[in-house]
């Protein structure tokens, strides 16, 4: 455990510490602890939380009793689409951001304009997902009447496609692959800088002597990267992967702004918002939130355990 038990000289009575901790504790209980508990309860109740969820069951229809909201959250068509999309996001965005970030971190380390090159990639982290959504929606812009050759193509991507002799593509409404990947690209554009910065810091921690020794022994750059750099920064890579996994599971703004979850691009977090504020169904919304948490917690626990191990080594 941590070493810093307060020195004996600082014993100050039992009340004072609680004055220091009190306000934060109160806010955390009201705003995080209690609502989390309450959301669990709500997920077993009906739309306006007046009866148990089983009240919404119809005769001759499948029913999971008190778990009725979970039946919706786990088996309904929209939710299955969302699960599929979140899985796609998970695979493509985590692998995309981490590999691009690592690739870029290694390259940027070798040039003199490293700070500028890194700032450019990191820049999207500073702006909102909403802003990023607008930027990319414009890149994906699709002519209102694509069959009329006189209608100008003002979206960058479609301009490239037409310049290469293709026909404009409706990037955001062509499902299920094109539009989901188009959205994931936006996520990669935003988060690569984050991964790159963390991985770059870790790479700088790899002792130069080890790399030099390997090169002197005849290892080429490719081997140095795979056999030395990657194994040495593996703990950091793991952290980045878990952090990105959590970010991906919570992705909301990009989908909400760019497609609103239409055309088969819905994701869990957007579904949760829609159930609550469009369909006014607190029960279903709470059930989806619980599922989201259940998906996130194993990743978090893994992260915490790995962190403990590191602490023990120190």
């Amino acid at each position: 455990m941590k070493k810093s038990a307060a020195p004996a000289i600082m014993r100050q009575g039992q009340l004072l510490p609680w004055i220091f901790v009190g306000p934060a504790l109160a806010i955390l209980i009201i705003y995080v602890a209690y609502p989390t508990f309450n959301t669990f309860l709500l997920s077993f109740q009906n739309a306006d939380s007046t009866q148990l969820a089983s009240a919404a069951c119809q005769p001759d229809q499948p029913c999971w009793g008190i778990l009725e909201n979970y039946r919706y959250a786990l088996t309904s068509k929209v939710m299955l689409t969302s699960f599929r999309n979140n899985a796609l996001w998970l695979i493509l965005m985590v692998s995309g951001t981490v590999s691009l970030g690592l690739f870029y971190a290694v390259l940027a380390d070798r040039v003199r304009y490293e700070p500028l090159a890194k700032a450019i990639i990191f820049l999207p982290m500073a702006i909102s997902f909403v802003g990023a959504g607008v930027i990319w929606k414009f890149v994906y812009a699709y002519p209102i009447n694509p069959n009329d050759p006189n209608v100008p193509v003002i979206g960058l991507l479609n301009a490239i496609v037409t310049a290469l002799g293709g026909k404009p593509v409706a990037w955001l409404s062509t499902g299920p692959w094109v539009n989901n990947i188009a959205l994931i690209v936006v996520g990669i554009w935003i988060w690569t800088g984050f991964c790159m910065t963390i991985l770059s810091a870790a790479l700088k921690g790899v002792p130069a002597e080890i790399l030099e020794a390997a090169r002197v022994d005849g290892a080429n750059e490719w081997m140095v990267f795979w056999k030395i750099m990657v194994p040495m920064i593996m703990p950091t890579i793991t952290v980045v992967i878990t952090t990105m996994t959590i970010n991906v599971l919570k992705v909301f703004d990009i989908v909400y702004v760019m497609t609103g979850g239409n055309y088969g691009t819905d994701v869990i977090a957007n579904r949760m918002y829609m159930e609550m504020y469009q369909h006014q169904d607190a029960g279903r919304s709470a059930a989806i939130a619980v599922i989201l948490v259940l998906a996130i917690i194993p990743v978090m626990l893994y992260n915490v355990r790995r962190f403990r191990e590191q602490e023990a080594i120190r």
Partner: protein
Amino acid sequence: MNNMVKLNNVLGRIPVHVAIIAMCVVWLLPAVGLLVTSFRPVQDVNETGWWMVFAPPKGAAEYKQFCSPCHGSNGSKVAGVNLFDPDLVSKYRRSMYLAATFSKEFDGKVHIEKDQWPNEQQTANILSYLRRESGLDTRPRFTLSNYVDALVGYRGRETYREECAKGNIIPGERTCNFIKDMTTSQTGMGRAFINSLLVTIPATILPILFAAFAAYAFSWLDFHGRQVLFAILVGLQVVPLQMTLIPIYKIYTSLGLNGTFLGVWLFHTGFGLPYAIYLLRNFLGALPRDLFESAYLDGASVWTAFFRLAIPLSVPAIASLGIFQFLWVWNDLLVALVFLGGTTPVMTYQISNLVTSLGGGWHLLTAAAFLSMLLPMIVFFSLQRYFIRGILAGSVKG
């Protein structure tokens, strides 16, 4: 020999430079498109892609092909006819009137042989070129109109300044006093900017203040259950925002806190706290113990040690944390959507609203989006070091 090695080094690095620059271009191009578009007149935005911003005006190519040979590039080569004369061009209000001249005879000669007539679209382009060259069409290449319109929330067919020049004041909606419209319009980015500031500044200060007190207690005060409580509080970081929205929304509805700044401040405080406590606790805990011991020996109270010692020493950590929290709140959409909505619209809400209700209004959308990015960009470029440190501390440490 040495030179050969050097040359090899330089050549070997070319792929590295190419890869880096290519990726930078891909990363910057979408944002450049947004920036350029936000300064272009609405007609241009809808007629040509933003990368054509410095291209010759529309119709120049057609003019050169069909008209230049006889009329010359300045339009006045044929005696008595100046194609760039506004009086002449204004006669051709539509391109079919211009097309009608093709079959006419001038001085006994056919204007243009029939098999060489420009088609409909080409004629229209030629006319638009003539209107521009003659000064009838005064559209500039760049304009600030989009920003003016976005700031005051004008969404009509012309521009805010044109409407106001005509004196089209709409009581309760448009006074044509720019400052007043900008700061009061419910649909404008000006008011939303102020709202965003009013939300963000307290929502940044409050969690850091509470976290500083708590973090100090966790690192330098002794009390029962300290370790356990700290572990629990930090563990609350795992709870995603979505898990708490519904109950808080219900509580706020019964207390009348929906749509109020106070409600959002407290919500953001609740969510900023676990991370803030964790970060500050790590920082304060790493300060040398002798420092506090000697302060106590000199007779300093806990409060003095906190305000005079701990707080000034943790300024770097507080700066990182402050920037991180500021940008987090400024860029947040979900919380603003749920608790503020349209009653007190912030910038992110306003933009998401523009996207869904105004599909094609790219000139407004790009200007509005850029306005919302202005402050984060300034913060990022001026305080980059603290910004990155704040983000890193939260993730690498676990």
